[in-house]
């Protein structure tokens, strides 16, 4: 669940980036309409809320809040570096984090 919270945090930032013209063009190679940008930004806000819920659900309010904003800072750095060097690979960390969550969950269930 910790991994899920981190993955959602990253996905939220990716959605925010897709809501900005310069990053949208770099990732998807087309110019977004104003409506589309707004849609991505809304999705980003929703994902950020979901990430907060997941973080608090896993670690409690106090630690969960900390996990939430620390994970978005770390994720943001990774996203920024990917946008600068390999914008088309931006979705990879989200998938990797989700997989870690699933693998971790299965391992925990197995124990």
């Amino acid at each position, binding site marked *: 669940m910790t991994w899920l919270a981190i993955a959602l945090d990253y996905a939220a930032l990716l959605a925010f980036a897709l809501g900005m013209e310069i990053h949208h063009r770099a990732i998807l190679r087309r110019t977004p309409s104003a409506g589309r940008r707004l849609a991505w930004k809304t999705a980003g806000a929703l994902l950020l809320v979901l990430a907060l819920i997941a973080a608090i659900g896993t670690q*409690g309010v*106090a630690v969960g809040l900390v*996990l939430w904003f620390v994970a978005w*800072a*770390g994720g*943001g750095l990774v996203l*920024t570096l990917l946008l*600068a060097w390999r914008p088309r690979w931006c979705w990879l960390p989200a998938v990797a984090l989700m997989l870690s969550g699933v693998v971790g969950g299965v391992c925990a269930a197995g124990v």
Partner: protein
Amino acid sequence: MKDTGFRNAMTWLHTWAGLLPGWVLFAIFVTGTASYFRPEITAWMQPEAPRRVSALVAGQHALAHLAEVAPDAPRWAISLPDARTSELKVFWQEPPARRFKSAELDPQGGAESTARKTYGGEFFYRFHFQLMLPHPWGRWIACFAAAFMLVALVSGVATHRRLLADMFLFRRTRDGRRPWLDFHNVTAVLALPFYVLIAYSALVVFTHMYMPWAGKALDARGEKPAKPAVTGAVAGGEGPTVDTVSVDEIFTTTAKLWGEERSVRRIDVTDRGTPGATITLTRADGGAVSLHAREVSKFSAVTGEPIEQAEKTGPGRAVGGWLYGFHLARFADPVLRTLFFVMGAMGTAMTGTGLALWTLKRREKLSSAGRGGRFGYWLVSRLNIAFVTGLPIACAAYFWANRLVPAGLAGRDQWEINAVLITWAVTALHAFVRPERAGWREQFAVGAVAFGGLPLLDLATGGRFDGLHAGFAAVFFALAAFCGLGARKLSKTSAA
């Protein structure tokens, strides 16, 4: 117009509030980041010490040891191993001295520890707020640096024109200070909540030092109990007379109740030999941010009955405990602790790029304005080298010395620290005698070799194949790669 004037003022403030404490802040960030893994660093530096030992067994050894060496001491304290450390330390007081005597024990056998003497992660932790200066100067300077950092953060936000729009923007232009400024902004904006909390909590931790008046006022009104005098039956030379309950029994019962995962972390026995004797057991951290959320059980050492403790509450205490706990991050599980480490690294990068930006900006001015201000440029640029690459090289020297200084040498723990000081002095000297560009290039190259060699040295000198040593190897290699890239970039492009 008004907006421009305000922004200019804030830019000026950000420049100087950032530069003046900049080097100290950089050193504090480097050592603080390392301190998140304080017990792990100690474990890496004592590869011969056992790992994952039982707190229950260790505690029983410690109590037996204290009963033997300090049967008459009025106070005992024991620091027990937990999931992160296998260190077992015992402390006792011999009146009239206030100072505690201490010993480090083998947690499995109970004899004096035979692992090599080292300060381990404690070195970084102490450096982080004492700066290797005599007490209390380091703490004062660290506090001023934290206060300046808050000023720099607020004025930095006011300076930034496109805070949200440029949140993820890093432009890889070849020259100028654009990429530096972008990286400075990205690392600053993304982790802004972390920096604000870390700087503010640092100030809260030391409130009692720079604002002692509240405590003094309470003392004067008699609301704060005076420090207990160091007495006890021992002072009279009679030895403990009232010691009816076995500490061992209470400890064993509690340790079994709490379980191995979060067992007893600390045992305190006070006023031994008097009717007021108490036994306090503190449980290992976990689950809550606040330091006051620690689970503590207190017993009378005469009757063995638990003592109810009056809960000290109040919003000030609650907030203070949360901030202190946040700063130390002992509550964090490994994933969250790694994220904190990344935050610390981002803070290091923010401070480092900030320092570099000052020289880049000044260099543009110097080339256009002719003479004047060259001494300032020289001083700042060389100090930058001495701290930004010199200090990490000195930290690498600490780990090298840990494996190269003979285990049996007297005062070897001090020699590890001397290695840091000597190396740092050499890098600083090198920074000041070499031309700027060559200074950076050569120190980056030395850093790459120093960090890159550490995992190999580890394998050659008793390191194990486990998660801990693999994790250290990964961080060392990453630092080496970073230094290597820096050296390569500087030797490729022509001089600016």
